[in-house]
């Protein structure tokens, strides 16, 4: 029985899962995604929120998972709820040509205090850094 038939699948599974685990530990990637079997270990990325500040000073908009949300271009940015970095926001901010369509993007995740039952949100990435406009 050749070695590959017996162990190729296990080796492939472990390589992918270890790579995903490293991303979770080193880059705060969501444990839910990436083939590492970390589902139900933490809040689902769909619960994270991305808010955007338009340059005209109007009210910030919330990017939603649904295409019916305030922005229909949310699909690309949704990846940033899994890859939770400012670099992801910078890379995927909607643009008109080379110009970002928003002055600022913020990614917030949920935080629930079990003893007080208080649900709050925590800022985990922003592009650009610094204070809100």
């Amino acid at each position, binding site marked *: *029985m*050749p070695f*590959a*038939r*017996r162990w*190729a*699948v*296990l080796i*492939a*599974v*472990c390589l*992918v*899962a270890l790579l995903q*685990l490293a991303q*979770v*530990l080193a880059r705060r*990637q969501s*444990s*839910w*995604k*990436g*083939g*590492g*079997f*970390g*589902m*139900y*270990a*933490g*809040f689902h990325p769909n619960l994270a*929120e991305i*808010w955007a500040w338009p340059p005209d000073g109007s*009210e*910030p908009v*919330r990017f939603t998972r649904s295409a019916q949300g305030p922005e229909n271009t949310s699909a690309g940015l949704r*990846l940033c709820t*899994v*890859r939770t970095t400012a670099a992801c926001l910078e890379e995927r901010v909607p643009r008109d040509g080379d110009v970002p369509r928003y002055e600022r993007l*913020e990614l*917030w995740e*949920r*935080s*629930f*205090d*079990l*003893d*007080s*039952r*208080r*649900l*709050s*949100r*925590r*800022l985990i990435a922003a592009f650009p850094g610094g204070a809100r406009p």
Partner: protein
Amino acid sequence: MSWTPFLPDPRYAARGREGGGGVAVRESVALAFVCAAYVATTVGFGDPARAVAWVGLGIVMFAGAAGRGGWQGWAVVAAGLALGIAGRPLAVANHHYVLTWASLALALALSAPVDERRTLVRHNARWLLVAIMGFATVHKLISGPFMDGSFLGFGIATGAFAEPLLQFCSSCVEAIGRNVAAVGEFRTTVPEAGAAVTLIDPVPNLPAVARAFGLATLLVEAVLFVLFLFVPRARVTHLLLLAFAAGLGVIRQELTFISVVAVLGYMCCPAEHARLRWAYLAAAVAFSGLAIY
């Protein structure tokens, strides 16, 4: 302990019950059904080109299964699923990955000589289950929100967990409804550090319930990891996996994932546990059917 406990066992081979032989047709058909259910429930058929591609893939898949051991069908399925991963590795679900690995395992097994095929199917399914339970346990152990109970507590408070059980308690349903409304309103406000909303308990002593629930989940997954690692042929191993699948069904209805776990259990379960194999098959078909429904 053996790392390859599914190598032909002379005791069963002598009675004509097991051995490593067989062409693994039943395993192929079971996995084909779960794969087809996954495709039907996941892939949008709004795009005609995509629909044609996936239906074509399904036909190849079933032809491979019906062809009594043609490995090419499963190689095509594994390649198709792998392409889906390559295109969106951080978007597809974990059961998409598992189905890819299971398809690859079947393709490799069916490419082996006939007398080794069933052995290889069981061997690979067993190690897939070891990996799934092992990594799932590690992720939970390193997760702050899981270990402190806040993730499960929030899930119970908003009906994401145990809703099939709590729906029979009217006060619980009412509390969950109020929490969901509060969370929905909170989400529409511009986030500020320190802003919070307080949820109410749908069950008495929510923190204790959530922490006990989390501990039980962690224990079951860790025990399944140990059992599949050391005693994959034992009846207790398969009884616990079936109980885990059934428990998932009433706690969190991840129907496709449950059917994938059931079909892996079926592929791994030795012939001496005929009733358990039927139970796995029934679970895989039932949960896949529910997912489609």
